[in-house]
């Protein structure tokens, strides 16, 4: 009997060790070590196109095609696991939202209600993005919740920009880099999935450049917000050229089981 208990305990210990080895403790916000501030682990994201797929188009000024993000973070700071440089009152709001998520009662944001994801968050998507390039414009057709962005190459921001979920975007080429400037964002969305705040004064600058002979699209994202951020910050992402992928119909509105109730996301 005693041996049986001993063996069971040993086995339990081994199982526990195996479990902890398989899943290291989740990262916490800004390495605080506070388990109530555990961050949702990132996703691996898309691989390169499978062998036999058409090669990428090396023309640096032609971004047409389906692109799929490699790597995906729920928190969009300057480094994985690091918060955006939020002012103290907005860092406190982020902490409140992460704690609510870890209690299983996340605060409802716009995307929970099938509204667009906002910026920069919509560019951090585990779903493919199709770029349709025409002489005066780039159109981004996002699979996720049929988000849609238009990047105008033939005009500047209008004088009185209306505030919308994805803002007003204008672009120009600097050599082989497409520079996209976005303002006119409403404040109903979060910077990221964890819940970093932005204001209607948010200003987002994206720099896109083809690398790997067109197999990869690099994005340097810069976020400015004089209301919620101490200072602007940037991060880098890459998208894979995926000619084998056809974006699918995505109907968030069909099966919205995570509807918000009094500002809390409730699974029904």
């Amino acid at each position: 009997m005693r041996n049986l208990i001993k063996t069971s305990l040993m086995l339990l210990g081994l199982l526990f060790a195996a479990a902890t080895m398989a899943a290291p403790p989740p990262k916490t916000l800004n390495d605080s070590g506070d388990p109530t501030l555990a961050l949702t682990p990132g996703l691996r994201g898309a691989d390169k196109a499978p062998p036999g797929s058409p090669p990428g188009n090396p023309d640096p000024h032609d971004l047409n095609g389906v692109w799929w993000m490699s790597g995906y973070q729920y928190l969009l700071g300057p480094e994985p696991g690091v918060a955006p440089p939020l002012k103290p009152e907005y860092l406190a709001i982020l902490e409140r939202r992460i704690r609510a998520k870890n209690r299983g009662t996340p605060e409802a944001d716009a995307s929970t209600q099938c509204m667009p994801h906002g910026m920069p968050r919509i560019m951090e998507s585990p779903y493919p993005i199709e770029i349709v390039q025409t002489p005066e414009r780039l159109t981004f057709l996002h699979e996720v919740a049929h988000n849609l962005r238009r990047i105008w190459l033939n005009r500047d921001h209008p004088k009185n920009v209306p505030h919308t979920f994805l803002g007003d975007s204008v672009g120009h080429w600097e050599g082989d880099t497409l520079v996209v400037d976005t303002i006119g964002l409403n404040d109903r969305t979060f910077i990221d999935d964890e819940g970093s705040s932005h204001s209607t004064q948010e200003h987002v600058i994206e720099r896109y450049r083809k690398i790997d002979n067109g197999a990869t699209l690099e994005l340097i994202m810069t976020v400015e917000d004089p209301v919620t951020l101490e200072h602007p910050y940037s991060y880098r992402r890459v998208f894979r050229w995926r000619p084998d992928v056809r974006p699918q119909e995505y109907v968030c509105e069909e099966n919205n089981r995570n509807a918000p109730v009094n500002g809390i996301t409730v699974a029904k």
Partner: protein
Amino acid sequence: MKRLRLLLSAAALGAVSLNALADPPDLSGVWSITTHVGALKTVDGHAPPLTPEAMKVFEAHRAAAAKGDYSYDGTTECLPPGLPRLMLMREPFEILQKPKVIYFVHQLNRLPRRAYVDEALPTDVDPHYLGYSVAKWDGDALVIDSNGFEDGTVLDNAGLPHSDALHVTERYELSKDGKHLHLKLTIDDPKTFTQAWSAQADYVKKPGYELPEDVCAATPPDKRPRS
């Protein structure tokens, strides 16, 4: 005389091959329906040839709508309206034309459609609200064939039903001046109609119009426009 005829046939042959090589017309741009279509009618102005069973469904939709009950209509919950209804909406749409894909991007809830050029319709496809579409050029006309539809949508703004056997053919022709687009629709759904039938719609170009960000879910249900 014989020589002249030979010359003429050579010229005709040349014209045909030139036509085949010529680029298709460019349908790119923002388009808006000229006359709102509530209830679809056939091109001869008749009611669509519903089977007796489908007629009961249609009458139930009409009776519900008369009482203000639109629960049969998924667009009240921001679901895509299906085809051809999406093409009959008041909201404009834009066409982005590429050699291999024709994109329709609708103002209505920012819905996209893709028609893949010179491909065959799949025979076994998961149902989609907007179906699966392939396109081909028939001379100067763009012909889009679609199947693979969810059967929960309705065909028009009056609540005309359809089944999962729906096959929609759209034939788009640009006017000579490039300012108008004519659509001839053919609806083939043997589970709903006694025979295939056609209807039509017309669109006018809206140069310089930028489609605004339309978010159905951000609009309270009682404020959503009813088509």
